Each structure stands twice: as structure tokens, then as C-alpha cells.
């Protein structure tokens, strides 16, 4: 049990770290093909990381420890989240502590670390990006909590493992209106949290539109590589959370080697499909004006709240 369970958790983390740049490559490639370009190839994000790793890091004058530790914190918190969430297996040694609130708090810690680093450099851009990021984070965190609470009411627990294994055993739960609303709210929040298109444009360096890019302007070399890797891992983990919560089929609930291997392959497939669909949708979207972003997030918060109230009142408990 324990050896294979630990191996499952380790495999989840390894797959997220190794697969996140590939996932970014898939998304860029899908976009490029849909826009009629050839694209740089699936391994381009990996090649970028390798290039950055060989360069020399520079630190701005007067930057303190927040600037230096932020990339490490971002990657570390995301790796811990990847170990906790039942992406491929619910039978891991850490599944008892895979609580929703812990996961959200770890994600928030990564966000705050990066925002502090943006402030730490003392540039105007860093401060602007940090303030925008915190505005969005303050609206995003309650929505993540709310939308998963809608699923935790029928499961009777906020432990993600319990929620996922309960849903896998009783798929009728997932077809309820509450669950659909929660899925939509969580999808909107995932886009906002990872800085994808309707909220932030990941492929520009225009001052007017920058949120995530503004905070990491001062990074270079291996530090920048870590920040990029961290951002890609966050996207992978959040898409994995969506897939595990709303399509929990094939997640290993036992510690058989075969079940675990099938679950890992299925997890990679599910997340790749989700990411490809997201990239295809992004081609047709325009970025929302920054002042309209709170409106979008208020809407998704409302949907999450409706989901919670519906699952609480309509189940007759």
C-alpha cells in the first residue's frame, strides 16, 4: 500500500512538472494552427526553459529576499498541490490532508509570493502588476472555495479525495444543476487565476494589458525559467482539478500498478483535451477590459453561490 501510494503521489508530481511545458506547447500549437501559422512545435516551451537555464541570473539593485525566494515558492507550492489533489489516484499517503482549504491556501501563497516579488523590485510596472494581481486574486479565491463547496455538500466533506471518490461511485451527482453551475464558475476562475485570455493575455508585453507579465519583468535566467515553469504548472494543476472533480472516471482508487498506470495516462489525456479545447476557444475570444474583469468574476461568484445554495436546499437535507 504505502510504497505504491507514495509512488502514485510522486508520479503525479513528476507528471505535472514534466508535462506542464508540454501542455503549454500543445496550447500554443493549437492556437498557431487555428490562426494559420505553422507554430514552433510542441517542445518549444522546454527549449525555452533550457535556454533560460544556461543564462546568468541578474538581480535588480535593492531587491530583497522576496524577489529571490518567489520563484522557488511558486514552484514548490504548486508541486505540493499536485501531490495533494487526487489527479490520478485517491489512495496516496497524503490523501487525508488533501483538504480544499489547504489547496486554495497553497495556491494563494504562490500568488502572494509573486506579487510581493513584483513590489520588491521597486519598479512602477511591478507595483502595478502586483496590485492588479491582488485585485483579481481577492475575487478569485472565494469563488474557488464556493464552487467546490457545492460539490462537497453532497459528499459531506471538504476533503478533495472524499469528493472525487464519492463522485466516481455516484456519477448521477455530476448531472445536477448545482454541479453544472459549479463547473462553469470554476472554469471562469481557472482562466482568471492562470492569466488566460479573457482576463490577461499571456502572449503580449503591452503595458496597458499586463497583469502577470508586469510582475515578472525583472526576472532573468534560471529565475525566469522557474517562474515560467510555475505558471505552466499552475495551469496544469487547475485543469487537473477541474477534470478530477467533474470527470472523475478512471482515477485509481486502489493501489494496483495497472490501475495507477491507466489513471496516469487518462489524467494526461483529460488535461490535454481540456487544454486543447481552451486554446481553441481562446482564438475566438477577445480580452475583456481590465475594469470589466470584476464584473466577470462577480458573475462567476454568483454562479458558484447559486450552486452552493441549490445543492444545499434542493437535496432536502
Amino acid at each position, binding site marked *: 500500500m504505502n510504497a505504491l501510494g507514495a509512488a502514485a503521489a510522486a508520479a503525479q508530481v513528476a507528471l505535472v512538472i514534466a508535462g506542464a511545458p508540454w501542455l503549454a506547447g500543445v496550447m500554443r500549437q493549437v492556437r498557431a494552427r487555428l490562426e494559420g501559422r505553422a507554430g514552433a512545435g510542441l517542445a518549444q516551451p522546454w527549449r525555452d526553459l533550457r535556454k533560460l537555464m544556461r543564462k546568468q541570473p541578474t538581480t535588480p539593485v535593492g531587491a530583497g529576499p522576496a524577489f529571490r525566494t518567489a520563484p522557488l515558492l511558486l514552484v514548490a507550492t504548486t508541486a505540493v498541490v499536485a501531490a495533494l489533489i487526487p489527479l490520478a489516484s485517491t489512495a496516496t499517503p497524503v490523501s487525508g490532508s488533501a483538504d480544499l482549504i489547504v489547496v486554495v491556501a497553497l495556491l494563494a501563497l504562490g500568488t502572494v509570493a509573486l506579487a510581493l516579488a513584483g513590489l520588491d523590485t521597486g519598479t512602477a510596472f511591478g507595483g502595478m502588476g502586483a496590485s492588479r494581481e491582488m485585485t483579481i486574486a481577492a475575487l478569485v479565491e472565494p469563488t474557488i472555495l464556493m464552487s467546490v463547496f457545492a460539490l462537497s455538500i453532497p459528499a459531506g466533506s471538504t476533503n478533495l479525495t472524499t469528493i472525487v471518490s464519492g463522485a466516481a461511485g455516484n456519477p*448521477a451527482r455530476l448531472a445536477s444543476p*448545482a454541479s453544472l453551475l459549479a463547473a462553469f464558475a470554476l472554469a471562469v476562475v481557472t482562466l482568471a487565476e492562470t492569466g488566460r485570455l479573457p482576463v490577461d493575455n499571456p502572449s503580449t508585453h503591452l503595458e496597458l494589458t499586463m497583469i502577470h507579465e508586469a510582475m515578472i519583468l525583472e526576472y532573468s535566467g534560471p529565475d525566469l525559467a522557474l517562474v515560467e515553469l510555475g505558471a505552466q504548472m499552475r495551469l496544469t494543476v487547475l485543469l487537473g482539478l477541474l477534470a478530477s472533480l467533474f470527470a472523475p472516471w478512471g482515477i485509481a482508487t486502489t493501489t494496483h500498478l495497472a490501475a495507477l498506470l491507466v489513471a496516469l495516462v487518462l489524467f494526461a489525456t483529460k488535461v490535454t483535451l481540456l487544454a486543447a479545447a481552451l486554446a481553441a476557444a481562446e482564438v475566438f475570444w477577445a480580452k475583456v477590459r481590465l475594469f470589466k474583469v470584476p464584473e466577470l468574476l462577480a458573475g462567476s461568484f454568483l454562479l458558484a453561490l447559486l450552486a452552493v445554495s441549490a445543492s444545499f436546499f434542493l437535496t432536502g437535507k
Partner: protein
Amino acid sequence: MSTGLFSQLLDLACGVFLLAAVLILWRRELAAIVRIFALQGVALAAIAVILAVHEHHWVLLAVAALIAALRAGLLPHLMRRALAASGESRETQPLVNVAASLLTAAALTLLSYAVCQPLIRLAPSPATRALPVGLAVVLIGFFTLVTRRRAVSQVVGFLLLDNGTTAVAFLATSGVPLIVELGVSFDLLFAVLVLQILTARIQVAFGSTDLDDLRELHD
């Protein structure tokens, strides 16, 4: 129809019904608002059909057909004509901005759940448990009516109010007598027709249907 399937279908129809009201607050394009209102009419008719099949109450099917024809067909059609005549396409400046209206809608929904709890305790069943949805739509309709400026969005608010009361009537008593429903529907139709004519006249006189501009009398 089994009880589990009945309550699932009813919850789904009620969910779409409430979601349509929320989307009406969210969207600014008046054409989209009219489309969403038609969708809500379909959801209301679906609630009536589900109740009719579950309780073998076949008069309700006629009422459902009437509701679908009127609220998903005729009223949206009339509103589209009013829109085409007025030449306005967007709700520019609601009195309460959209983010705040969405949060207000959330508060109103929770309030209606709280208020309905004693009613539900009288006779717990899947239909009465969905009662708060109807009340929430009534409250959201009121809110739309008082915070929007364009004549068409105010009409939609008024119609939301009526959709909500009809839904409450269905869920609480499995429908109102056919004759009452007929009377109410004709009243609605007349109200919308009158408003359509008024909109056209306001348009001719002032060049816009911003009702806040109508402050003084002209001969």
C-alpha cells in the same frame, strides 16, 4: 415517472429558470436579453410539463402549451419589434452597475431561500423545495424593473416578475385554474402591446427611450 428522475428534471428546469434571470442582469445587449427571456419562457413551460406528467394533471399540459406560445414566442417577438423600432441596442448606464447587480441578485436569492423555509416545512416535496427559485425570480424582476433605464429592459423586468409568480403558483399548488391563467396572460399581452406603442411614441417624440429623461410635460 420515478420520483428520483422527477426531482432531477424539476431541479434542472428550475436551475435554467433562475439562471436565465441572472443572465438578464448580466448581459447588456437588449437583443440578447430578449433571447434569454424567451429561454426562460421555455424553462417555465418545461416546469409545467414536468409537473403535469408527474401528477397526471392533463389540463396543465394545455396551460404549458399556452405559456410556451405566449412567453417564448409572442412576447419576445413583440419586444424584438419594439427594439427594431427604437433603434437602441444596449443598456448603457443602469442605475446600479452590473457587478453590484449580480451581487444583489445573489443576496436576493439567499433571502428568498431564507423566507421560503417555513413554507417548505409545511409540505416538503421536490416541488415545494424549488419554491425559492420562483420567489428569487420575482425579486430579481423587481430589481431589474427599478434599476434599468431602457423601456425594453424595464418591460423585461416586469415580465420576469410575472414569470416568477407563475412559477411559484405552479410549484406551490400545481398550477392555477386555466381561466385565471388565461386572464393573466391576456393582461400581460395588453401591457406589452401598450408598452410597445408607448415606446414607439416616446421614440418619435424624444429620439430615445431613456425613461429618466421624461421629466416635463409637453403639449
